[in-house]
């Protein structure tokens, strides 16, 4: 039941920020909303109520590494699109491997 609620709240929050990114101009500004804390907003309330403040704070500490991985992800995506002339979809999807590598690597090096 908790996962169904999580799914619905997550879908709604991500959709809300995605719509904001769609309608805002210029697109470099709208892009800020592509890196909004949508998943965190959807889950933190539930995490705090289920696991407590310290548990949620531990998740937030790891989120810093996830955000650093996001920065590398966005930089690699720009290079794939502009330097290698990839289309947006393959560039944005392929670069998810970079996010995963940097995030898990950072976790293994710093937090494990």
């Amino acid at each position: 039941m908790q996962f169904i609620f999580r799914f619905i709240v997550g879908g709604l929050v991500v959709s809300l920020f995605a719509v904001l990114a769609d309608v805002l101009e210029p697109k470099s500004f709208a892009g800020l909303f592509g890196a909004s804390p949508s998943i965190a907003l959807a889950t933190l309330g539930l995490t705090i109520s289920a696991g407590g403040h310290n548990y949620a704070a531990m998740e937030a500490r790891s989120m810093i590494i996830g955000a650093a991985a996001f920065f590398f992800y966005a930089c690699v995506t720009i290079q794939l699109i502009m330097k290698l002339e990839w289309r947006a979809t393959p560039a944005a999807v392929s670069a998810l491997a970079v996010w995963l590598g940097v995030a898990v690597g950072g976790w293994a090096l710093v937090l494990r």
Partner: protein
Amino acid sequence: MRVSFDLAALKKTTWREYAIRFLFGGAVTVIAGVLAKLYGPAFGGLFLAFPAIFPASATLLEKHQREKNQAAGTSRAIRGRQAAALDARGAAMGSVGLAVFALMVWKLLPSWDGASTVGAALATWFVVSFLLWHMRKRRTFFRTKSF
């Protein structure tokens, strides 16, 4: 450059595309919860910063730009790519704000209540992201080739 709303962009997105984003966002949120349960909060927390919005947004942006060019009788695929790259540059700046959001939640949550912590962190995310974007516009930071 002024920030504005283009509400016509809402009509360009199909219901299928809205549904895909909803399903993707919901799925990532559930996966983050499952991973935290299986491997602990230190691992699950990584996924709170997963790029859940950007891939679909960049794809739609490129598609809409391509359709606009075709309607205007031009076939410059490069315009669509440039729009997606601009979106990615904004996301790179937003990710710095995202890190500050996480830092605030990490430091404040043990002593503050949840709503105040998340509210303050969200406001800081926006201010930090906006200032980076504004400084970039004024070319005082991130001196890179403009496109």
